[in-house]
């Protein structure tokens, strides 16, 4: 929706501009690229889904943008937020941007929260640090935030520890913490994966409400195409550390261009007509230490030829909003 504008408006709207972001991770066999030249832009207030299977580099991409990579991992490329390259910033300045400008809600909130601090204290911490609030003011604000995320019996939860809360309540606390400083971007990493479906629907609806009320941009990391379809405006599909296709969600579902995207959509049980058979992709995602040359997907791709082995495909625009990294993408249309 937001990405449909003309070139000039898009340029002014861009809040986050990621270019050629690569993350080198230490492995037994030396450093390997967990994220491999990833580029995307995020408009203010927009929702982008980062979708892919496990090990595709979704979480690593987010951690790199936040400067939260594990020890001995290193990032290359640029991550421009409001014109400033986050990767070049010293830790002290990056820390201010984290939480107050770009916040992240992690997967499995019950493990991501600090088990020995109360919920109230954990949410108040960032208010005190980044907004200079006093204890009383911060706790009053926490109370308000917990109400905002529809925490049941919020006043009581302030003084409880994470283990006393259900998974859904922990995720609400985590979201309250993330939005405490009214960030301009919220990165939600599989925010509902550990939750039951009825609770998932509540959390997704909550994220949408908060996003609308705060005018916040949202990066939603997920492996669930249902969540992508319902929540996002644009999506980037990742495979083996690379973005293989970027498009609006409508384009992605209606006219997927990359063979991997096409195969994933054909593997969804929901989309299967009565008595139909699911398409499946042979093999499994190659481990980080043994990725194929050229196109990373070629080892599982029915359309791969010698060019795919020799030459790495670069993202090529297919429309104003869709780009695909595939040598065969022009022929792929017929199959879609």
């Amino acid at each position, binding site marked *: 929706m937001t990405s449909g504008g003309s070139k000039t408006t898009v340029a002014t709207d861009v809040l986050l501009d990621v270019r050629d972001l690569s993350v080198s991770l230490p492995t037994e066999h030396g450093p390997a690229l967990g994220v491999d030249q990833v580029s995307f832009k995020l408009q203010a207030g927009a929702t982008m889904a980062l979708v892919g*299977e*496990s090990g595709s580099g979704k979480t690593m991409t987010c951690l790199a943008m936040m400067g939260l990579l594990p020890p001995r991992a290193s990032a290359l490329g640029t991550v421009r937020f409001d014109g400033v390259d986050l990767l070049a910033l010293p830790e002290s300045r990056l820390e201010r941007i984290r939480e107050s400008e770009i916040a992240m809600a992690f997967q499995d909130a019950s493990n991501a929260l600090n088990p020995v601090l109360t919920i109230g204290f954990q949410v108040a911490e960032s208010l005190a640090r980044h907004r200079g609030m006093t204890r009383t003011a911060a706790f009053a604000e926490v109370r308000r935030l917990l109400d905002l995320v529809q925490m*049941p019996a919020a006043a009581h939860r302030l003084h409880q520890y994470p283990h006393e809360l*259900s998974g*859904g*309540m922990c995720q609400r606390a985590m979201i309250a913490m993330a939005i405490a400083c009214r960030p301009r971007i919220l990165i939600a990493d599989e925010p509902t994966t550990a939750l*039951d*479906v*009825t*609770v*998932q*629907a*509540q959390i*997704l*609806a909550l994220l*949408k409400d908060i996003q609308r009320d705060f005018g916040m941009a949202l990066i939603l990391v997920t*492996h*669930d*195409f*249902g*969540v*992508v*379809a*319902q*929540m996002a405006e644009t999506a980037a599909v990742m495979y083996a550390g690379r973005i293989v296709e970027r498009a609006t*969600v*409508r384009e992605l*579902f*209606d006219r997927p261009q990359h063979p991997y995207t096409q*195969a*994933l*959509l054909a*593997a*969804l*049980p*929901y*989309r*299967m007509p009565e008595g139909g*058979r*699911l*398409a*499946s*992709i*042979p093999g*499994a*995602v190659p481990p980080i230490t043994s990725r194929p040359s050229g196109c990373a997907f070629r080892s*599982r791709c029915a359309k791969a030829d010698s060019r795919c082995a020799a030459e790495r495909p670069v993202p090529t625009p297919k429309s104003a909003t869709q780009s695909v990294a595939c040598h065969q993408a022009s022929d792929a249309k017929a199959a879609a």
Partner: protein
Amino acid sequence: MSSSPAPPLVEAASLTRNFDTGRGTLFGPKRYVRAVAGVDLAIAAGETLGLVGESGSGKSTIGRLLLCALPASSGQVRFDGEDVSHVGPARWRALRREMQLIQQNPGTALDPRMAIGDQLAEVLDIHDLEKPRDRRAAAMHMLHRVGLAADVMQRFPHQLSGGQQQRIAIARALLVRPRFVVCDEPVSSLDLSVQAQVLNLLQDLQAELGLTYLFISHDLNVIRYMSDRIAVLYLGRIVEIGRREQVLGRPLHPYTRALLGATPIPEPTAPPPTPQISGEPPDPASPPAGCHFHTRCPLATKICRTVEPALRENGGRGHQVSCHHDAGDNNLVGACA
């Protein structure tokens, strides 16, 4: 079920299972969780019954009770007409060959210190199937059948991907030629592309070997794809059961409708998921009185808080629901169908 053309292969009557949770204090009363509370169901030979529900609803416990892998606190399990709730060790062992389990996490279901070929041959040894010298060949044959190459025989589980491990778990379960297989969240730990491979494989094998499945999943989209009939579970009780098109096309229980409404649909044009119910499932250790669902139900009235609704026929041909407000002309029905 009266609607099933074939006689039931597996039946459960008033099946109940309690788990002790210890005494709160030294001399306090014994406490327990009623994981499964009076479940009746029948699975016809050759059909797939899908069992769907949220965590803690008792899905896996029902699976284990039907397999007699877990003794029931009360109630009865019948397999092929025989009461198998209280069989002796010899008959129990013979039954193991007839009923098998495929678990969610194949990584822990397989022996980490045994080569795949040995694990598969061992199963045949235990059940005294095939001649000893033919066992490895039989194992190899089954490996091919589930789409794996012969070199897997020498490997260990940690050397294989999750999808390969699950294929081996399937091969091991089917090697003894069971008639009834409980598939307990068999694809939940697998990536989407691999999930499709395993679902297809399970369907092919069912058609080929005439298997009867209890297919357990929390994912309504997977249940829809796999099941002939569907049972919806909430806090240890079946709240709705019927043929797939009945339960998903014309859901009668508010919880079924909530599940359907909450499941995100992978179509950008579909209406967004709506949280029709608030709150989270109650603690199974202290379920609400009356209808267990009344604390989250948009339709709950006074009767729901006191009287537990019975599972009874509604909508015809084996479609059963336990709800005081299932008149069928309910305004929510059309909205979610």
